[in-house]
């Protein structure tokens, strides 16, 4: 039984031709998934928090709690 001649040249090139596009594609998908799964929700959470943030109200609450040194709670 005589073995036929197999392909012996360009084996790495063939493998890369197949796997590199997949590697690039998967990397791009991973980056897109992180952007839309993590960074965009995070940015939205901050934006939503600050959209109706009343800084004076928060400051008064902190002042009454007595955490500041430069301004004491009312009545002290």
């Amino acid at each position, binding site marked *: 039984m005589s073995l036929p001649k197999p392909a012996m040249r360009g084996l*790495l090139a063939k493998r890369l031709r197949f796997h590199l596009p997949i590697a690039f594609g998967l990397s791009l998908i991973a980056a897109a998934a992180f952007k839309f799964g993590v960074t965009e929700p995070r940015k939205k959470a901050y934006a939503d928090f600050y959209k109706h943030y009343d800084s004076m109200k928060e400051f008064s609450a902190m002042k009454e709690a007595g955490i500041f040194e430069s301004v004491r709670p009312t009545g002290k």
Partner: protein
Amino acid sequence: MFRAALRLSVSGARSLTRTRPQYTASIAARSYSHGKQETDEEFDARWVTYFNKPDIDAWELRKGMNTLIGYDLVPEPKILEAALRACRRLNDLASAIRILEAVKDKSGPHKEIYPYVLQELQPTLSELGIPTPEELGIDKA
């Protein structure tokens, strides 16, 4: 080998089929766009001539083999035969057996290449009295 990868990613993997027949037998892994591309047959003939030098020395044998192994190909049986005969002239049985191990390693996942090469080299191996790593039991770790 790495130049092959660079060539692919820069030119776009899709264009590879067009240039494939001439590309793969690289001339010393240089990819110029000028000058004639060496054919596979010319490449093989050049290497057979290299190893057929009657007064080849040990350094040239090692250099030749290391360069050859660096290419993206498994050397043709006729190149390997010339290399094995060079080992015989240099009384270097160790390198002869190592060449066989290198062929198996270069094949990577393509398990059909090594048996084919051994089949083609059988007459030369018998003539020169070179045992295969399998016969010596050194193919398993």
